[in-house]
């Protein structure tokens, strides 16, 4: 009962995909829903091929990628820095914790109007959105990592008259690699979401902009195509980040 060959698992998965695909096609062709709403999957596939062979699509992809990467990098650096400070100063951590946890549970996209006032309506506000999104998972993971450091090591270093900076560099930072990577994994995921949602709400370029333009002109198959490609790219970026992180952790 508990042992199933991987063939059986694969069969279930293939059957599931086929069932969903068939159901989609049946709905698309049945005329039960307005035909624009559920286009045939072949139309969506054709639209995907069209997008992928269009130079303009890659331009928008580059815009989004740049916004995500810059925002993610800025958010990560700030997150690790703040996390280290809070990790060393326990009192500050206890004072700041409710604000960080509360803000971490807030949908970041609602800060977009503020970010547009501060950084303009162009790429600046999207980068800031990505950075703000990435900051919170990184800071939470870093503080957790700092708390996991064996206090005996810190006391030994202090008894040898090590400075705060030396303690951070020699004791805390080496043990921070793993939690920081865990935080970065979550951070990249939410940075991608933040940037794309900001593009969907208000922008002139980027994949989110392309998708919502198709929606506004009711080119539904094209919109599905862009959303599915974007979704796949985001999942691939997350997987890549996960693999790179695992390698880094294993190498140590």
């Amino acid at each position: 009962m508990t042992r199933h060959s991987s063939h059986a698992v694969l069969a279930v998965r293939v059957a599931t995909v086929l069932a969903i695909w068939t159901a989609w096609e049946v709905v698309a062709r049945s005329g039960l829903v307005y035909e624009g709403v559920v286009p045939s999957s072949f139309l969506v596939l054709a639209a995907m091929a069209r997008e992928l062979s269009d130079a303009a699509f890659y331009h928008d992809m580059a815009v989004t990628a740049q916004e995500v990467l810059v925002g993610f990098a800025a958010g990560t650096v700030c997150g690790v820095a703040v996390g280290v400070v809070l990790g060393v100063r326990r009192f500050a951590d206890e004072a700041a914790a409710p604000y960080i946890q509360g803000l971490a549970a807030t949908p970041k996209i609602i800060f977009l109007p503020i970010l547009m006032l501060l950084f303009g309506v162009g790429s600046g506000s999207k980068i800031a959105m990505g950075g703000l999104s990435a900051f919170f998972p990184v800071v939470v993971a870093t503080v957790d990592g700092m708390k996991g450091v064996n206090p005996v090591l810190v006391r030994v270093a202090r008894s040898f008259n090590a400075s705060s900076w030396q303690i951070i560099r020699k004791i805390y930072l080496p043990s921070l690699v793993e939690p920081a990577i865990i935080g970065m994994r979550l951070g990249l995921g939410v940075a991608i979401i933040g940037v794309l949602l900001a593009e969907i709400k208000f922008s002139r370029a980027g994949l989110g902009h392309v998708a919502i333009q198709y929606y506004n002109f009711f080119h539904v198959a094209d919109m599905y195509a862009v959303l599915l490609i974007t979704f796949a790219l985001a999942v691939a970026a997350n997987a890549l980040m996960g693999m790179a992180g695992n390698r880094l952790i294993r190498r140590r």
Partner: protein
Amino acid sequence: MKRFAPTLAGLAVVLGLAALLQATIAAGWISGFVVSPPTRIVAAFAELARDDSLASAFLRTFGATFAAAALAALIGIPFGYLLYRLPLLGRAYESWIGALFSAPVVLLYPMFLVVFGRSVLVGVAMGFIVGAIPIVLKTREGFASVPPVLVAVARSFGASDRDVLHKVLLPAARPVIFTGVRLCLIYAMINVVAIEFLVNLGGLGYLVGDMYDQYDIPAMYAANVCVVLTSALFYFLSERIERWLVAR
């Protein structure tokens, strides 16, 4: 007194930063059109609360969040049980659902916009999908972590599937399942508010966008503060309930 020292210090820092902001804006170093002075944000907050646009926005957001979370629990818990009872399905689907957990599911919201139109259902649907994922995963994990000997003892006393589920599995797995419900509530709320903001659907998220569109900047900041307070309230309240459930 000592126990509350960090809390008081945190509060003091926040109030100090607000005073500093007020002073820099008064001195003209920061434009009051970009960042509103805290006193005006408080005044705008009071105004929003008076003409009960705040109360109705609250109710809309809460209603949509609870509808999404209830739907997610109603479908997610039985589905998690199914994945536990049929290990073949569990093995086939668990890694998929796990991948969905970190995938940007919310990006697919325009699809629901096409299907439902501009309706509150878009937010409920997104909250439901995003919220159901942790419930399914945690329910399966919770059932799988029940010691098999408990189930075996119940069976040896002739317990039916139904008895085993109600008297052994559910009570033992309850804390883990509630962790899933808690994540569901938080994620559902985040997605509901985000969709309200993106699609102008009413509720707290809409309030932020609406104030920005009217260029009522202090009110926009006040609406932002409202969303933060509501999210924080949700977070800490559900944490309390979880701790209470685990302690029982």
